């Protein structure tokens, strides 16, 4: 379970987000430029909140310092979240299977031998109906193929929370429909907690177990310091 109650931002931009996400797909609906990506980055630990706190699986992973509360910032590396971006953001110099292998979280549960990791990555690609892409050239994958590999990489880390940043917006209609099915199946099979941000109402209709409307962020007036 994920619980978010923060004000976050970059520069003088501020966005407020307060919601709880449980097992299934929580869709955060907001127009472009509302600060959705910032909210996801804050959950992932790439950005620190200005105020409030975030809990993942009942552990406080981020908390802004106040008179009562101490500052808490668990590094991205230790938060057990995974991220899928708008366009795959795969490593272009590694083939798809190596990309998925790199998604396997370093640490105690990571298979010790590379052959095991490769086998695990291949199973994940297979579950995304993408095993035929294992050794393809990453740079030449289509948008939909990239997102399948990217999803496999995200799942490989066995995350507590899966964050998806408009994962279908760069795809054509057919790939979008097929990938939505894949995502639904994966989330159900693995009983994942997924947070998907989108401005596409079709995503909401097709996938949302819960909908959160994000109030668009604002720029602070430049009066004094914040």
């Amino acid at each position, binding site marked *: 379970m994920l619980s978010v109650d923060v004000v976050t931002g970059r520069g003088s931009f501020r966005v407020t987000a307060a919601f709880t996400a449980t097992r299934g797909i929580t869709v955060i609906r907001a127009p472009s430029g509302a600060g959705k990506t910032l909210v996801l980055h804050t959950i992932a630990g790439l950005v620190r909140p200005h105020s409030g706190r975030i809990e993942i699986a009942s552990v406080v992973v981020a908390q802004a310092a106040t008179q009562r509360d101490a500052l808490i910032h668990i590094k991205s590396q230790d938060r057990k979240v995974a991220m899928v971006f708008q366009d795959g*953001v795969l*490593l272009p110099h590694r083939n798809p299977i190596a990309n998925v292998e790199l998604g*396997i979280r370093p640490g105690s549960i990571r298979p010790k031998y590379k052959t095991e990791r490769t086998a695990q990555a291949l199973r994940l690609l297979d579950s995304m109906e993408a095993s035929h892409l294992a050794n393809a050239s990453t740079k030449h994958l289509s948008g939909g193929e990239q997102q399948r590999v990217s999803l496999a990489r995200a799942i490989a880390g066995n995350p507590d929370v899966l964050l998806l940043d408009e994962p279908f917006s760069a795809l054509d209609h057919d790939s979008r429909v097929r990938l939505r099915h894949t995502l639904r199946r994966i989330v159900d099979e693995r009983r994942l907690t997924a947070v998907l941000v989108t401005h596409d109402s079709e995503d909401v209709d097709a996938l949302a177990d819960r909908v959160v409307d994000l109030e668009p962020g604002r720029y602070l007036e430049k009066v004094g310091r914040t």
Partner: protein
Amino acid sequence: MIAAVASLSEPFWLSLRVTAIATVVASVLGIGFAYVLAKGRFRGRSLVEAIVTLPIVLPPTVLGYYLLTLLGVRSPIGQAFQRLTGSALVFTPRAAVIAATISALPYVIRAARAAIENVDERCEAAMRVAGHSEFGVARLVTLPLAKRGLGAGIALGFARALGDFGATVMIAGNIPGKTQTLPIAVYDAVQSGESAAARNGALILLSTAVVVLLIVTALTSRGNGEHA
């Protein structure tokens, strides 16, 4: 101080050795500095940046003068070195390596820094979120994706190290067979009217520079945008 140029082979091999070592040292230091400057958010970053860029804009003789002040036999560093090793630091091939390294460093740093800043931050974020340490992210993502720019910086640094005259003359001197590098040998050859040696030395340096610039162009023109 005009020493005769007996043959170009000694200066040539000395230059090659000095440049090779200087390029390796400047590459390691330069990429490290570039990484910190590109990624670090710390007070005094622009001052560090200005200092490491200085060798580009300072007259090489002025750079050499300050290096001599810093490392000379009467300086604390020079004396410490002498006590430890029994020999002076300046007016040795080692000093030529130092001069070449310092001259090459800013070129490596500038190219490497631009290349590192150009790497898609989301690629790095994806690996960070997947649990890879900062070192792992640098090794798996940043440096491989920046490799063309790093290569260009190293090539430029090599050319600059090979071509250094002013700083080398100031702290390593012009001792034939010991610290007389190829650019200095060309100067000597001109001064003593050995036009064949001057012509050949100049030709070697010119062709190396052209080859290096061709490499740099090839690395930077195809590399940009490839990973977008």
